């Protein structure tokens, strides 16, 4: 078993409206940026134990499927980092 | 700073003793007093504990002498000041527990979290007493709503209050909001919580007994807010709290103070609330104490001092969120959502079971002792041993009256006469406000004179426009745009929510209920702090009376500037004197409160701001005075004083003027309030509304807006200019709506109470017509009133 750190990025699906993103886009435009689109999401950093890389990736996906993202409205991506690097981030 | 103090004082990397005293805000005489109390040199941890406990925020050094002069007793008082919150007796075994508290400095630094944790703290004060919170109200004071900085504060503070209260599930049935430039860099956030307790469930902090186990429950202890009380709330901001260039609040010069900000978890608070009430209901605990300012140090010394006992704590047992925390960090952390629970002997396993069921982390960290010592250990090592009462009760008390002096007109607060405690006679008042007798000609007076002339010439549109402008102004406009983001109804007790004079809550299973109000009069207090504070008390009580409730007691939150300067000291002295005079006149005790000093930015004090929360009793909720306009044909009357002035009015604020004198007739106020309650008792009153910001015209407009019904009225036949009669302000005025067949009874009752009464007109139609000066469709009034605040804040409705 080794320690792993998975970063799960959760975002609203492309077709789902993101009012928070729209508000941020408006605010950025007000600041003078030529913004065409903003999507907001969340980043969840999980430190956990797994047998190997593959097991860790599977576990992180299961976390995403069962809890961290709602498949009705959200997509997610898993980033598996070396524990020390991710811990700094 | 990393210190590991021992009683012998040998530590590694230990700062000099003098530095430590300075670090924790103690003066040389205070340090000498501590040495004398202990008869030895304290070690660094002990200095830190004294520094926090003797901070202004915890010890009320500059206000205690004055606060002691307030009336605090009465037949209905169940718990007076000194406990977590005060309480009044509602009869039949039920108590109403309440308190108002400031969270100004944290909110200035981080508006969202500062306001949110302010709500968290005041909730804990109330449920620590064994009461279930049934309402949160707040009084908020912001700067100019047109600035980006104020808008950022409003968004943050209102967002924080909503996020916390909504999540815990406590309704927010009312509040007070002021916008004045004096709060630009120093917004005020005062939160009031009202709870209901069975008399048998009441818990106090003074009932812990030697040998009982001490538990710390709730959030793990982190480095957030270390000594926040002594560092943040007991000193002035040197710079602006927000970005001077108008960016988001909290970004800039106070960056060095930011680590002291705590982050709240309303979810954890909800679990703590339910667990605490369950423990109290099962009688498993002797005492409960909230951890607020100065964290564990304050909670432990308060419980020990009040219970006349000692306490032994092991910091090694305190669950921590951060690694490598020094004992002084553990003792002074202000991590939110923590309670100290003293278990009844033999009930420890019940206490632990309740914690576990609510998924709370509760740890036994020590026990009560029979010694006169608060002993702090780290495992076997003794770190500190201090008499609890020296920490909690022996801080010096400063007599600010010795250096108090009114500002001489050089400051931001323009002085009227130092204190005019009574109305001058009516002629004098009329002269002051009359268009021909200007005390200090200025833009506002010129505009008003022009308007008065215009009114005389009868272009009704101009006066109508002035009313619309006032209804849409930040001082008057509907707060719904803010309050609709708060849950006003959870708990299913809210009978009348925001929008009326007072919030009305029923008590389930009983016919009676309570009314709650929260008010402040900073614009008046800026001219005369005595009159301002007295007016706030009078208004809070008057608002309860307008719901038909008998005022029982008040809680006060005094927000003032620097008490070490003569003007700040004078503001404090006059503010307390004003509250005292009003409380005595209205027979209202003060049962709890809070003082926030050093509210100043770059050396300029805020206006003295006394927030008054009042609680009243309704014998029968169903027959309260409802929030209605009345019925077609009902008479509209003004009771009390028709003598209203423009000097400190919202009208003049719009026109840039602000001048005295201001005054209050407390005898009249008391007679007026007694009269309205007596008349209501006789069934003579259909509706009532306090004349407040915006004067009589706004009071009539607000009355009309309740049900969208018009009225045709004339102004009372007293001396004075039309504009002053329409928009002048002053205490002692209530607009009443009565069925025509009750007018005689009402007049008889008014005569009995020595209260003047003017019949103004009658309800009917869909136009507010004040003959001959103004006629305005209700729809137009509504658009102005409901859209005003959003527009002022630059929002879309």
């Amino acid at each position, binding site marked *: 078993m080794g320690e792993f750190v998975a970063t799960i990025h959760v975002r609203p699906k492309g077709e789902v409206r993101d*009012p*928070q993103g729209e508000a941020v886009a408006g605010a950025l435009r007000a600041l003078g940026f030529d913004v065409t689109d903003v999507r907001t999401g969340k980043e969840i950093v999980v430190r956990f134990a797994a047998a190997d890389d593959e097991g860790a990736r599977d576990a992180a996906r299961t976390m995403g499927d069962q809890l961290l993202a709602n498949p*009705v409205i959200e997509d997610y991506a898993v980033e598996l980092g070396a524990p020390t690097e991710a811990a700094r981030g | 700073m990393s210190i590991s103090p021992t009683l012998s004082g040998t530590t590694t990397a230990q700062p000099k003793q003098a530095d430590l005293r300075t670090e924790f805000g103690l003066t040389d005489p205070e340090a000498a007093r501590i040495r004398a109390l202990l008869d030895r040199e304290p070690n660094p941890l002990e200095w830190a504990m004294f520094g926090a406990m003797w901070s202004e925020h915890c010890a009320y050094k500059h206000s205690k002498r004055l606060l002691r002069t307030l009336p605090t007793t009465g037949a209905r008082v169940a718990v007076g000041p000194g406990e977590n919150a005060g309480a009044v007796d509602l009869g039949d075994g039920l108590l109403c527990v309440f308190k108002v508290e400031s969270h100004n400095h944290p909110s200035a630094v981080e508006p969202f979290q500062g306001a949110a944790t302010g709500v968290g703290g005041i909730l804990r004060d109330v449920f620590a007493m064994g009461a279930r919170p049934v309402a949160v109200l707040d009084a908020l004071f912001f700067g100019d709503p047109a600035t980006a900085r104020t808008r950022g504060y409003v968004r943050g503070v209102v967002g924080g209050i909503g996020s916390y209260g*909504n999540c815990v599930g406590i309704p927010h049935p009312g509040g007070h909001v002021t916008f004045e430039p004096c709060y630009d860099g120093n917004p005020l956030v005062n939160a009031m919580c009202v709870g209901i307790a069975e008399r048998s469930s009441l818990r106090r902090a003074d009932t812990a007994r030697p040998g009982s186990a001490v538990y710390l429950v709730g959030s793990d202890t982190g480095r957030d807010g270390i000594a926040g009380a002594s560092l943040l709330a007991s000193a002035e901001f040197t710079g602006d709290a927000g970005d001077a260039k108008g960016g988001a609040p909290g970004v800039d010069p106070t960056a060095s103070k930011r680590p002291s900000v705590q982050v709240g*978890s309303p*979810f954890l608070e909800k679990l703590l609330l339910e667990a605490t009430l369950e423990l109290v209901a099962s009688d498993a605990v002797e005492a409960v104490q909230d951890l607020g300012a100065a964290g564990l140090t304050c909670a432990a010394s308060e419980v020990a001092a009040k219970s006349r006992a000692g306490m032994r704590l092991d910091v090694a047992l305190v669950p921590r969120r951060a690694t490598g925390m020094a004992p002084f960090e553990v003792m002074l952390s202000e991590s939110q959502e923590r309670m100290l629970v003293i278990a009844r002997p033999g009930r420890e396993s019940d206490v632990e079971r309740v914690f576990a069921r609510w998924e709370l982390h509760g740890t036994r960290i020590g026990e009560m002792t029979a010694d006169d010592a608060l002993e702090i250990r780290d495992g076997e090592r003794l770190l500190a041993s201090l008499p609890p009462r020296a920490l909690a009760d022996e801080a010096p008390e400063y007599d600010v009256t010795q250096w108090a002096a009114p500002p001489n007109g050089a400051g931001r607060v323009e002085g009227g006469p130092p204190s005019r405690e009574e109305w001058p006679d009516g002629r004098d008042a009329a002269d002051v406000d009359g268009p021909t007798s200007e005390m200090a000609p200025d833009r506002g007076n010129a505009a008003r004179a022009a308007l008065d002339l215009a009114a005389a010439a009868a272009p009704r549109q101009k006066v109508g426009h002035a009313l619309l402008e006032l209804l849409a102004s930040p001082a008057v406009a509907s707060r719904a745009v803010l*309050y609709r983001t*708060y849950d006003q109804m959870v708990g*299913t007790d809210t009978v009348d929510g925001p929008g009326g004079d007072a919030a009305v809550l*029923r008590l389930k299973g009983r016919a009676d209920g309570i009314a709650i109000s929260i008010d402040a009069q900073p614009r008046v207090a800026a001219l005369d702090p005595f009159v301002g504070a007295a007016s706030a008390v009078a208004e809070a009580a008057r608002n309860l009376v307008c719901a038909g409730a008998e005022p029982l007691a008040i809680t006060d939150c005094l927000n003032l500037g620097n008490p070490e300067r003569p003007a700040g000291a004078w503001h404090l002295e006059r503010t307390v004197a004003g509250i005292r005079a009003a409380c005595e006149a209205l027979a209202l005790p003060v049962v709890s409160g809070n003082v926030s000093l050093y509210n100043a930015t770059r050396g300029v004090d805020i206006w003295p701001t006394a927030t008054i929360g009042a609680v009243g009793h309704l014998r029968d909720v169903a027959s309260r005075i409802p929030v209605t306009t009345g019925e077609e044909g009902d008479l509209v009357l003004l009771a009390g004083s028709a003598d209203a002035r423009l000097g400190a009015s919202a009208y003049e604020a719009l026109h840039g003027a602000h001048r005295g004198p201001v005054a209050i007739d407390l005898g009249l106020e008391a007679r007026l309030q007694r009269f309205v309650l007596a008349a209501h008792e006789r069934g003579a009153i259909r509706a009532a509304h306090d004349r407040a910001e915006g004067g009589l015209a706004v009071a009539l407009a607000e009355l009309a807006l309740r049900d969208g019904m018009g009225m045709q009225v004339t102004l009372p036949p007293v001396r004075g200019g039309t504009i002053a009669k329409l928009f002048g302000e002053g205490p002692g005025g209530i607009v009443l709506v009565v069925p025509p067949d009750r007018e005689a009874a009402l007049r008889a009752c008014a005569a009995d109470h020595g209260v003047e009464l003017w019949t103004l007109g009658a309800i009917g139609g869909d136009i507010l017509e004040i003959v001959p000066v103004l006629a305005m469709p209700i729809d137009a009034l509504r658009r102005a009133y409901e859209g005003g605040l959003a527009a002022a804040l630059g929002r879309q409705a």
Partner: protein
Amino acid sequence: MKVAILLYPGTWSERDFAHAFGLLGIEHEIVWHADADLHGFDAAIVPGGFSYGDHLRAGAIAKLSPATRELRRAAADGMPILGSCNGFQILCEAGLLPGALVRNTHLEFRCDWVRMRVESEETPFTRGLGGELLRMPIAHGEGCWVADEDTLLRVESSGQVALRYVDERGTATPEANPNGSTANIAGLRNEAGNVLGLMPHPERCVEDLLGGTDGRRMLEGLGARTVIPA
């Protein structure tokens, strides 16, 4: 008729429901989620609140509670289940109702009175109320119902839309929609009709003293069920 009112950490409408059922004379019990056993009950309420602080997503953590398994079993057995506010969010997260509830499009928490039209009578809570306008309080920050187009088509065509936000004339206008919910949807039922979720709070309007009694009409349906079998 005995109603179970589920209590999760962070729930706050359970006592309001208990009070309402008390007034209606309907037997009820508040049941802690972790030891929820719905055997012996005739109906279940998933009340409002902020279960688990609404962390991650409203209802996301509550759906992992043992109570969800019980709800699923009871729902399959045809037990009447009502989820209000956070309860609606939990039922969607748990897959007992379609779609999801996301942040209000105006991004604010909103407490207000709203009007709804009853679109489906096929639930124990709306029987006999078809086409009626009901006025109820809302108090939520995440009440905007969303779903993909197929799901939306399906719930519309199968009559699963139980309640829709409307104005005083009964028209579903954007102004009458307090949170930006798709197609003004305020409440949904499952295909069988025994599970109803809605954002408004029927338990808050069962007394004239508190401003309305339309919630009574919805909750009374439970009591009536023992008399008039479904």
